[in-house]
């Protein structure tokens, strides 16, 4: 190997990986294929093939008939029904008329995206393919934002508060010296203005508010859940990296919720949120809310689902971040302590850059997994009240149960596309940038 490296001609690709191949017999040569074939085959049969069939199903009407089933090709009718027809309100929600402030937020968002695009076109990273993909991403993001603006009820406030928190956390990462960035401040201010205006309009014109559909609800759960899990996991990780006695006890305890079935967690939180028979009922009654049903109101029911999801998955984020935090070199921290750095400075300049790569990975994993949320809301609220806590997966399941397999497959594809879009945007625009910045 040494010799090989020395002999390598500069500019010519050298073999990077060492393959321990001493090919001797057919038995050894067969291993190459025998070992990987079963895995590839089972994924092809159980994932890729069904995925293609699903695609076909989503363009057709499926009916069980005597002795089998019948599939009729009907083109885009399933999608049409979901986006523009009778199911629109279920999937996209009930739209309220846009207030001038909604339009302002929209304009700010579009302006921001156009500005980023302009910078991209002027930079030397410009490629035609990248340009087209960015245009598609812009249209997609704009449509999602428009839907969110028009259909979110006041429940969105949790979401928006989280958005602002994330925004400022991101700014805090982005700016090395100053604690603000002009673009971010404009967007942040826009969101705050929009929020307060929305609040007023809700108080004054209660009928003018929209209702979120399953797509908005799913996005709310994803954003709310992932943000809470990340911040809580990070906080717990930071607390446990100190040399405290009893560390192992806390580690084990904090890991527990991850092991519990989501169905069980649904029931657990159903008990916890009961205002009459639940353990917190004295608190509710003292607050004068004895006959208030947390799961009976859209906003509070969504909050309950997010809390349940956070309770279950914070351990996952925590355990991974804890390892990353423990990997930060002790010598650097000691040196910083000697130089008189405070806690905040140490976190910002020493710890944070070290944990950014792991953070982005763990956020990506949770992002992808959160889109699949079904069992917990199904038990906790059954998707109700109305469709207030119905996720896309749950909607697809309900469609399947009522025999509408085509519509269900179309929904599954919509979910797949939205989840993939969010993951790609996260990887290409946020993750890569953060990793570059850390370097």
């Amino acid at each position, binding site marked *: 190997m040494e010799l090989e490296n020395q002999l390598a001609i500069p500019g010519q690709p050298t073999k990077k990986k060492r393959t321990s191949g001493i090919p*001797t017999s057919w038995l050894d040569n067969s291993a190459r294929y025998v070992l990987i074939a079963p895995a590839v085959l089972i994924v092809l049969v159980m994932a890729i093939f069904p995925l293609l069939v699903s695609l076909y199903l989503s363009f057709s009407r499926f009916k069980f008939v005597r002795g089998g089933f019948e599939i009729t090709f009907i083109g885009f009718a399933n999608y049409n029904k979901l986006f523009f027809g009778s199911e629109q309100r279920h999937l996209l929600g009930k739209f309220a008329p846009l207030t001038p402030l909604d339009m302002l937020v929209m304009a700010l968002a579009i302006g921001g995206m156009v500005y980023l695009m302009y910078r991209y076109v002027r930079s030397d990273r410009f490629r035609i393919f990248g340009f087209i993909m960015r245009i598609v991403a812009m249209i997609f993001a704009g449509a999602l934002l428009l839907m969110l603006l028009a259909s979110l009820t006041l429940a969105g406030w949790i979401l928006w508060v989280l958005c602002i928190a994330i925004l400022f956390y991101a700014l805090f990462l982005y700016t090395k010296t100053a604690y603000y960035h002009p673009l971010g401040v404009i967007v942040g201010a826009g969101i705050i203005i929009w929020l307060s205006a929305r609040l007023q309009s809700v108080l004054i014109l209660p009928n003018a508010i929209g209702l979120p559909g399953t797509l908005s609800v799913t996005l709310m759960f994803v954003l709310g859940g992932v943000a809470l899990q990340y911040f809580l996991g990070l906080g717990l990780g930071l607390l446990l990296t100190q040399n405290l006695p009893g560390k192992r006890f*806390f580690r084990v305890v904090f890991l527990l919720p991850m092991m519990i079935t989501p169905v069980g967690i649904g029931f657990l939180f159903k*008990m916890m949120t009961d205002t009459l028979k639940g353990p917190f009922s004295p608190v509710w009654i003292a607050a004068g809310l004895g006959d208030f049903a947390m799961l009976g109101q859209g906003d509070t029911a969504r909050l309950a689902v997010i809390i349940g999801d956070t309770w279950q998955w914070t351990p996952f984020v925590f355990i991974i971040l804890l390892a990353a935090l423990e990997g930060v070199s002790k010598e650097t921290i000691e040196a910083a302590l*000697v130089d008189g750095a405070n806690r905040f400075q140490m976190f910002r300049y020493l710890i944070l850059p070290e944990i950014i790569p792991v953070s982005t990975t763990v956020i990506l994993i949770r992002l992808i997994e959160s889109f699949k949320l079904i069992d917990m809301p199904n038990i906790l609220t059954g998707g109700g009240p109305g469709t207030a806590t119905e996720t896309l997966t749950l909607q697809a399941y309900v469609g*399947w149960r009522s025999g509408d397999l085509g519509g269900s497959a179309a929904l599954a594809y919509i979910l797949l596309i939205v989840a*993939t879009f969010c*993951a790609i945007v996260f990887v290409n625009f946020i993750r890569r940038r953060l990793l570059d910045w850390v370097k």
Partner: protein
Amino acid sequence: MIRRLLTSSNPFRPSPIWMAISYVLLGFWAFVVLFPLYWLAVTAFKLPADVNDGPAYIPFVDYQPVMDAWNYLLVESGENFVRRPYINTIGVGIASALGSLVLGAAASYALARFDYRPKLALIGLFIVCVLLTVLITGLGVPWQLSVVAAIAVYALLAQSVGRRFSAALGNSDIAFWLISQRMLPPVAVIIPIYIMFQQFGLLNTHAALVIAYTAAHLPLAVWFLRDYFQGIPIELEESAFIDGANRYQVLWRIILPLSTPGLIATFLIVLVFAWNEYTMALFLTGAETQTMPLLVAAQNATRGPQWWNISVLVLMMITPIVVLAVILERYIARGILVGAVKG
């Protein structure tokens, strides 16, 4: 005095005030985690009246613990009511975890030690042929015929057109492809799987669940084990080759024994996922093959939630997993970490 409280002599040991704050926060989160579990355990020994009269917190003080709910579920409801789903869950969980582990270990080892260069053109061709099969089956041709036709078309085209293009993928692409299957929402694939199993008469059998779970959790196994195997020095294998061992012997005698901790971790994580899985079980099982999550979910009955019964079932279901988790906490944490930190 205050100064001494705020600073500490050892730089890695926080000052007393910080320690107090940390303990309060950690204690708070430990309470958040443990209290629902405590409530579960307490409710399992209550009578309906104890639940309906408002919260009772401490056994023997606020109420008298009884075994009525346990008796109702385990004896009065017939012995198969809980036992069958429980055995199903254990069996399906262990079988599918073993399946994922075996397939995942083989694939991970292959990905860690061989160089694969699958041609892009052949893959594209393959997808086109599968699409073609689906399409003509949809048009009413018997599926056996369309599969044979597609294989023939593929073989023909692969020999002629496929050879002209040289663009190829690498190992990391294959690994990424395998791992990305985790992204698929179960509902996107479960309906065709449902139809497929129905055609093969596998619906409502244990095999259906085992196959589905093995496939669903295989990406996790590949993800965890690939990095693990890559970390094992290659020299160990080379010396074994020189001694005349073949590839399978090396894998079986050297690699697998060396990666026992990783295998245990992967097995546990996959087992937990299979144990708790709900969506696919919902589609693929019937009364005979029902698993515990379904039984628990079914308690959301018309008479309103029977909390005492639900608590018993959830408690029975989570106890083995929680005990395993507590005993093997180190392994689980490490298993998750290996995948996440490098992935």
